[in-house]
C-alpha cells in the first residue's frame, strides 16, 4: 500500500463491509486505514505483469492507494465484484460528502482558506482556547499536522501511520483538536453518516420537557463556569442543545452529572454536532455504563483499577486496605469526568487527546501513574482525608518542575505533568485495550451483583417484614423478582415491558408460589409425573390405568390448583389492584407462615367460602377437599388420604342440614363410601399420589374415574356418586359454619397438624424447594432487573433494546460462561460493518480483535502474501483454504446488514460490555 509520493509499503489485512474498506497492518509498523466507500473517487485494476492482482484506488483527497491482493484469482475477482456493487450503493452518500467536508477544519487548513463557519467550530474559536498558545507550541504542532494530512490523507480518508500516535501524545493543536478527536474516536464517521440527525433531534423535541432536561437545566450554569464561553448565552445554549439532544436520543440514560463537565470541555474544541456524536461514542462505547442510572460502568472500572493497583503496586494496595481507604473516593471523579475537573484544563485535554485515540486504558494508566508518583506520600496517609489531600495537592502542582533540584536544565524543565505522562506510558505499558476489555468482562458480574444487592437492601428497608427474618426477606425478594423476570416467557423477546414490571399478576404469582412451595408447582406437574415415572412405584401403578384418565386427572388437578392459588392471590391482593407488590406478598405470606392454627383454619374457610355467606355449602366443602388433595398430592403415604376422607365424612355428618335431610345424607354417604373405597385400595399397592387422584375424582363424581378404578367397587358406586352430583347441582342442602369446620379439622390429627404447622411449613424460604431455581446467574440478573426500576434502568434497557433481541437475553441469562462465546459471534457478525470505525478508534492494536473477527466470518480475507511486491503494493495474508466459503457468507451478511453500520457498531460495542 502506498501513500502519496512516499511509497511506503505495508503488509496486512484488508476487510470490506457494506460501506467501509479497512486495512490493518500486521507488521510492527503500524498502519490503519478505514476508508468509507463514499470517499473513493475511482478504482482501477492495475495492469500487472505478474499473476498478482492489484487495485489502484483514488480517494476524494486525490490520494492514491494501491492494494495488491494476494490470493487465488477467483477470490480476487469476487472481491472486486463485491467492491463494485458496494461502491454503486454509495453513490448517494457521496453527494453529502462535500457539505460535510466543509465542516472539517483540516480542509480549510490545506486549502489555505481562512477558517470554517462559526457554527461548525468550537467555542474556542470565539472565546479563545485555554492555555497559552505559544507555550503549547500551537503553531508548530499545526504545521506538523499540515504535513501529516498531506502525506496520509485527512479527516475521512486519513491513514494512521506510526507517527500518528506520537503527534497525539505531544498534544493536539487547538483548532485541529476537535476534528482529530472525532477521527480517533470514530465519531467522525457517525457524524458523516448521520448528517442532520442532530438537528432533527432538537427540532422534533422542541418545547418538550423531561426530567433529564430539568436536571440539565440545573447544571448549565455550573459547567466549567470559569471558562468565558459559559458565562455567555452562546456557550450555555450550545451545552444545553448537546446535552438535551443526547437525552432525547438515549432517554434511558438521559443525563448524568459529569456529562455536563465533559461536554462543556469538548465544546471548546468541537461544534455542537461534533460534540453530540463524540458524546455518543463516549457514552456508548468508550465509557459504557458510566453515566447510566446505576453507573455500573464507572463502578466496574473502579473495581478494575483496584485490581490493577493490587497487581502493579501491591504495597500501596495493601496499605490502603489496611488503613481502610477506598480508592474510588478519590479516583471515581477522575474517571467520570475524564480528569477535567481534577487537574488544570490544559493537562486534562492532553489526557483527552490520548484517551480518544487509545481508549479507556488511558484512564487506568494515568490513574496508576498518579498513584505511583505519589506513592510515598500515600503510604504515609492514614485515612481518606490525608489520602485526598496528597492527591489534591499533587494536581494543583502539575505545572511545577518534576526535578527542581536537578543540575540538568533539561530535566529541570520537565514538569510534573511530563513526568506523569511518561510514567503512565512507560511503566504501565502493559495495560492494553484487550486487557481492559477482558477485565471488564471478568468483573462485570460482580458489579452487577453488588448493584443488585444494593437495590435490594434499599428496597427491603422500605418493606415491613412482618415476622420474617432478614434472610427470609432476602429470599422472598429474590424469588419475587426472579419470577417477574423469568416468569413470563411470552415477554422475553418483547420490548421493555418487563423492565417496568414491579408487581406479580395472577399468572406470575403461580410461578412465584411454586418457587417457595412445592405443592404450588402447578405448571411443572406434568414433568414431575413423567420424570418420576422411572421405576418409582406410584407412577407404575398409575400407568396401569388408562393414560387418558391420568391426563384428565392431571388437568383437573391443575384446575383445582390454579383455583386455589388464585383465591390465595385475591386474598393477598389487599388493595384490589389485580397485582401483588412485594409488600403485599410479604404480608400475605407472613399471615400464613406465622399464623396459628386458628388463623390457618379461618384462611381455608374463607378461601373456600366462595359466595361469602359465612358457611360452606356442599360444593364448597368438596372444593375444600379438592384443594387439600391438591396440596397433599406430592406427599406419599395414606395418612392424608384417610384424613381427607374423614374430613368429608365428618363434614357431611356435622354440617347443618338445611333441606331434604335424607337425600343429602345419602349423597354424602355415597361420597364417603367412594373415599373409603379409594382408601381401601390404597391400602393395597396404590400409593398416595395415584389414590389421591382417585379420591379427588370421586369427590367430583366425574366420568373418567370408571377406567381407573378397579373392578367391583366401581360398579357399585358409580351410579350413586353420579346421583350425588346431580343432587348437589339441584339443591344446596348443607351448610357448615366456621366453628363446625374447626371442629371437623380438630377431630382429625393429620388435619390438625396440617393446619397447625404443616401448611406454614410447606413454604420453604431458606431451604431450596425441591428443584434449585435460584441459580447464581439468574439471581444476579433478577436483581439487576429489579433495579431497573430505579438504579439500573440503563442496564435493563441495554439488555432489552440494544442487544439483538432474544439472542442477547439468552446469553445474559446463561451468564458468565455464555457471554464470551456470544460476544464473539456477535462481534463477528458485525465486524464486516464495524471493524472500520470500531477498530479504528480502538486503535492500532485492535488488529488482534479484527483478526478474531476475520477468522470467524472471513471478512474478505485475501490470502497469503509472499511479499515480493513491487514498490507499490500492499499485501494481505491469511489462510487460504477457508476463505472461499467465508467470503460467501460475508457477502450475504453485507447484503443483509447494509447501511445500518452505525446501529450495528452501537450494538456490538454495547453488547460487548454488557
Amino acid at each position: 500500500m502506498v501513500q502519496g509520493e512516499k511509497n511506503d509499503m505495508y503488509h496486512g489485512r484488508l476487510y470490506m463491509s457494506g460501506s467501509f474498506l479497512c486495512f490493518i497492518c500486521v507488521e510492527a509498523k503500524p498502519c490503519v486505514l478505514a476508508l468509507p466507500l463514499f470517499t473513493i473517487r475511482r478504482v482501477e485494476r492495475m495492469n500487472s505483469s505478474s499473476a498478482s492482482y492489484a487495485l489502484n484506488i483514488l480517494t476524494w483527497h486525490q490520494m492514491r492507494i494501491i492494494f495488491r491482493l494476494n490470493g487465488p484469482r477467483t477470490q480476487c475477482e469476487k472481491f472486486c465484484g463485491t467492491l463494485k456493487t458496494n461502491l454503486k450503493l454509495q453513490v448517494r452518500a457521496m453527494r453529502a460528502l462535500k457539505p460535510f467536508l466543509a465542516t472539517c477544519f483540516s480542509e480549510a487548513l490545506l486549502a489555505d482558506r481562512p477558517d470554517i463557519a462559526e457554527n461548525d467550530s468550537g467555542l474556542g474559536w470565539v472565546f479563545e482556547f485555554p492555555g497559552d498558545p505559544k507555550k503549547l507550541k500551537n503553531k508548530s504542532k499545526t504545521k506538523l499536522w499540515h504535513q501529516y494530512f498531506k502525506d496520509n490523507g485527512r479527516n475521512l480518508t486519513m491513514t494512521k501511520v506510526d507517527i500518528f500516535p506520537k503527534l497525539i501524545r505531544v498534544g493536539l493543536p487547538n483548532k485541529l483538536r476537535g476534528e482529530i478527536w472525532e477521527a480517533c474516536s470514530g465519531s467522525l464517521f457517525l457524524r458523516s453518516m448521520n448528517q442532520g440527525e442532530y438537528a432533527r433531534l432538537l427540532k422534533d423535541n422542541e418545547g418538550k420537557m423531561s426530567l433529564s432536561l430539568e436536571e440539565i437545566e440545573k447544571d448549565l450554569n455550573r459547567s466549567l463556569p470559569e471558562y468565558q464561553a459559559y458565562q455567555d448565552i452562546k456557550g450555555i445554549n450550545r451545552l444545553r442543545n448537546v446535552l438535551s439532544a443526547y437525552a432525547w436520543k438515549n432517554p434511558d440514560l438521559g443525563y448524568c452529572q459529569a456529562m455536563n463537565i465533559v461536554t462543556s470541555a469538548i465544546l471548546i474544541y468541537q461544534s455542537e454536532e461534533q460534540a453530540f456524536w463524540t458524546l455518543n461514542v463516549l457514552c456508548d462505547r468508550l465509557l459504557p455504563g458510566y453515566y447510566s442510572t446505576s453507573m455500573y460502568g464507572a463502578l466496574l472500572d473502579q473495581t478494575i483499577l483496584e485490581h490493577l493497583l493490587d497487581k502493579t503496586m501491591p504495597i500501596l494496595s495493601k496499605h490502603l486496605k489496611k488503613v481502610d481507604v477506598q480508592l474510588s473516593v478519590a479516583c471515581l471523579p477522575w474517571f467520570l469526568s475524564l480528569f477535567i475537573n481534577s487537574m488544570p484544563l490544559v493537562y486534562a485535554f492532553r489526557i483527552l487527546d490520548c484517551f480518544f485515540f487509545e481508549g479507556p486504558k488511558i484512564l487506568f494508566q494515568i490513574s496508576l501513574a498518579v498513584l505511583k508518583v505519589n506513592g510515598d506520600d500515600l503510604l504515609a496517609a492514614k485515612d481518606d482525608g490525608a489520602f485526598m489531600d496528597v492527591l489534591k495537592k499533587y494536581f494543583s502542582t502539575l505545572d511545577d518542575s518534576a526535578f527542581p533540584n536537578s543540575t540538568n536544565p533539561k530535566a529541570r524543565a520537565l514538569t510534573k505533568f511530563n513526568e506523569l505522562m511518561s510514567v503512565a506510558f512507560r511503566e504501565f505499558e502493559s495495560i492494553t485495550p484487550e486487557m481492559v476489555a477482558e477485565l471488564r468482562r471478568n468483573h462485570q458480574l460482580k458489579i452487577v451483583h453488588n448493584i443488585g444487592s444494593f437495590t435490594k437492601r434499599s428496597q427491603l428497608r422500605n418493606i415491613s417484614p412482618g415476622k420474617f427474618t432478614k434472610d427470609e426477606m432476602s429470599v422472598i425478594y429474590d424469588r419475587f423478582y426472579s419470577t417477574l423476570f423469568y416468569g413470563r416467557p411470552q415477554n422475553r423477546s418483547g420490548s421493555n415491558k418487563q423492565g417496568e414490571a414491579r408487581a406479580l399478576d395472577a399468572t406470575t404469582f403461580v410461578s412465584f408460589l411454586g418457587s417457595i412451595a412445592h405443592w404450588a408447582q402447578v405448571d411443572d406437574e406434568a414433568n414431575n409425573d413423567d420424570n418420576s415415572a422411572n421405576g418409582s412405584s406410584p407412577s407404575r401403578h398409575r400407568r396401569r390405568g388408562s393414560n387418558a384418565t391420568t391426563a384428565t386427572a392431571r388437568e383437573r388437578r391443575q384446575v383445582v390448583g390454579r383455583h386455589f392459588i388464585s383465591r390465595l392471590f385475591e386474598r393477598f391482593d389487599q388493595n384490589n389492584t389485580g397485582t401483588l407488590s412485594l409488600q403485599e406478598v410479604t404480608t400475605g405470606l407472613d399471615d400464613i407462615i406465622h399464623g396459628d392454627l386458628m388463623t390457618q383454619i379461618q384462611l381455608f374457610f374463607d378461601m373456600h367460602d366462595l359466595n361469602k355467606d359465612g358457611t360452606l355449602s356442599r360444593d364448597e366443602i368438596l372444593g375444600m377437599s379438592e384443594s387439600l388433595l391438591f396440596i397433599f398430592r406430592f406427599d406419599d403415604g395414606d395418612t392424608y388420604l384417610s384424613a381427607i376422607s374423614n374430613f368429608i365424612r365428618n363434614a357431611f355428618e356435622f354440617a347443618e342440614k338445611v333441606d331434604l335431610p335424607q337425600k343429602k345424607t345419602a349423597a354424602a354417604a355415597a361420597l364417603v363410601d367412594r373415599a373409603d373405597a379409594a382408601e381401601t385400595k390404597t391400602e393395597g399397592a396404590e400409593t398416595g399420589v395415584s389414590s389421591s387422584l382417585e379420591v379427588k375424582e370421586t369427590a367430583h363424581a366425574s366420568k373418567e374415574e370408571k377406567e381407573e378404578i378397579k373392578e367391583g367397587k366401581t360398579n357399585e358406586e358409580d351410579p350413586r356418586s353420579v346421583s350425588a352430583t346431580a343432587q348437589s347441582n339441584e339443591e344446596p342442602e348443607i351448610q357448615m359454619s366456621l366453628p363446625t369446620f374447626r371442629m371437623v379439622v380438630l377431630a382429625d390429627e393429620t388435619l390438625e397438624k396440617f393446619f397447625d404447622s404443616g401448611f406454614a411449613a410447606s413454604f420453604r424460604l431458606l431451604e431450596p424447594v425441591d428443584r434449585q431455581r435460584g441459580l447464581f446467574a439468574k439471581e444476579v440478573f433478577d436483581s439487576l432487573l429489579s433495579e431497573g426500576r430505579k438504579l439500573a434502568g440503563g442496564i435493563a434497557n441495554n439488555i432489552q433494546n440494544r442487544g439483538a433481541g432474544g439472542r442477547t437475553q439468552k446469553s445474559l441469562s446463561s451468564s458468565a460462561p455464555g457471554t464470551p462465546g456470544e460476544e464473539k459471534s456477535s462481534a463477528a457478525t458485525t465486524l464486516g460493518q464495524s471493524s472500520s470505525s470500531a477498530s479504528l478508534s480502538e486503535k492500532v492494536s485492535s488488529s488482534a480483535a479484527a483478526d478474531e473477527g476475520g477468522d470467524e466470518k472471513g471478512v474478505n480475507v485475501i490470502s497469503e502474501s509472499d511479499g515480493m511486491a513491487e514498490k507499490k503494493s500492499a499485501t494481505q495474508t491469511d489462510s487460504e483454504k477457508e476463505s472461499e466459503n467465508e467470503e460467501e457468507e460475508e457477502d450475504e451478511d453485507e447484503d443483509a446488514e447494509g447501511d445500518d453500520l452505525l446501529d450495528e457498531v452501537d450494538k456490538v460495542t454495547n453488547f460487548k460490555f454488557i
Partner: protein
Amino acid sequence: MSQTNDAASQVIANNMKPVQVKLVLLGEAAVGKSSLVLRFVNDEFQENKEPTIGAAFLTQKCRLEDKVIKFEIWDTAGQERFHSLAPMYYRNAQAAVVVYDVTKASSLEKAKSWVKELQRQANPNIVIALTGNKVDLVSTGRKGRRTSESDQDEEEEQEAMDLDEDEEDDEDYGISRQVPTEEASAYAQEAGLLFFETSAKNGEGVAEVFTEIAKKIPLEHILSSTRGSRAGGVGGSNGRVDLQNGANGQRLGGQQDKGGCAC
C-alpha cells in the same frame, strides 16, 4: 476515625490537637451542599458552583470550648443516580448534614429519605442536622412585608406548591418559599435531628450548623474509643500525617487565623 486520633487524643487536653470528625453532606442536587461547605471552609460564595462528581473532600478546624475539632467533610453528589455511591462516603461518619432547598418542596422529601437511610444504615450514633438552605431567596423579597404577612405564610406556601414553579426564575426576586420553617422543624424534632435554616450565599446560619453539631457529638466518646482501640505503635507515623494535615491547613489557614474559625 483514624489513627491520627490516638496520638491526638493522648495530648488533646494540653496541646489542643484536633479531634477528627467525619461529616457527610447529603441532599438533592443543586440544593447548595457544596456552597454550604465552601461558605464554612473558605467563607466564600460562588454563584455557579460546578456540580460535585462523586464527592468532594474538604477539611476545616473549629474550636469548641477547650477542644479543637477538625471536620473532615465529604460533600457528595446530589443527583439521584449517584445515590448508590453514598454509602461509601457516609460510612463511619459521625455527623451528617442533610440539606434541602426551602424553595423546593420536593427537596425536603428527598432529605427525609436520606435521613431514613442514615438512621438505618449509617453509624448508629450519627448526629444528623437537617438544613434548609437558600433562605436568602425567600427573605430578601420579603423582609419588608414579613411582619404583616407572617400569618399568611402557610397559605402562601400551599399556593407555591401548587404552582410548582420552576426555580429558574431566581431573578424574579420574590421567589416563594415552599417549605415552611414550622413544617421542617416539626419533622426534625420528631425524627430527632438538629434543625437549621441557612443561606450559603450570605452566610446566615452556616456556622451554627457546624457548631451545634460539634456540641452534640460525643467527643469524649470518640477520644476514648480511639484511645482504646489503637495502641501506641502507630504513634511514630502520626507525626507525619499531622504534617500532611498541616500542609493542607495552610490553604485553610485563613480561617484558623480568624480566631477559632468560623464557628
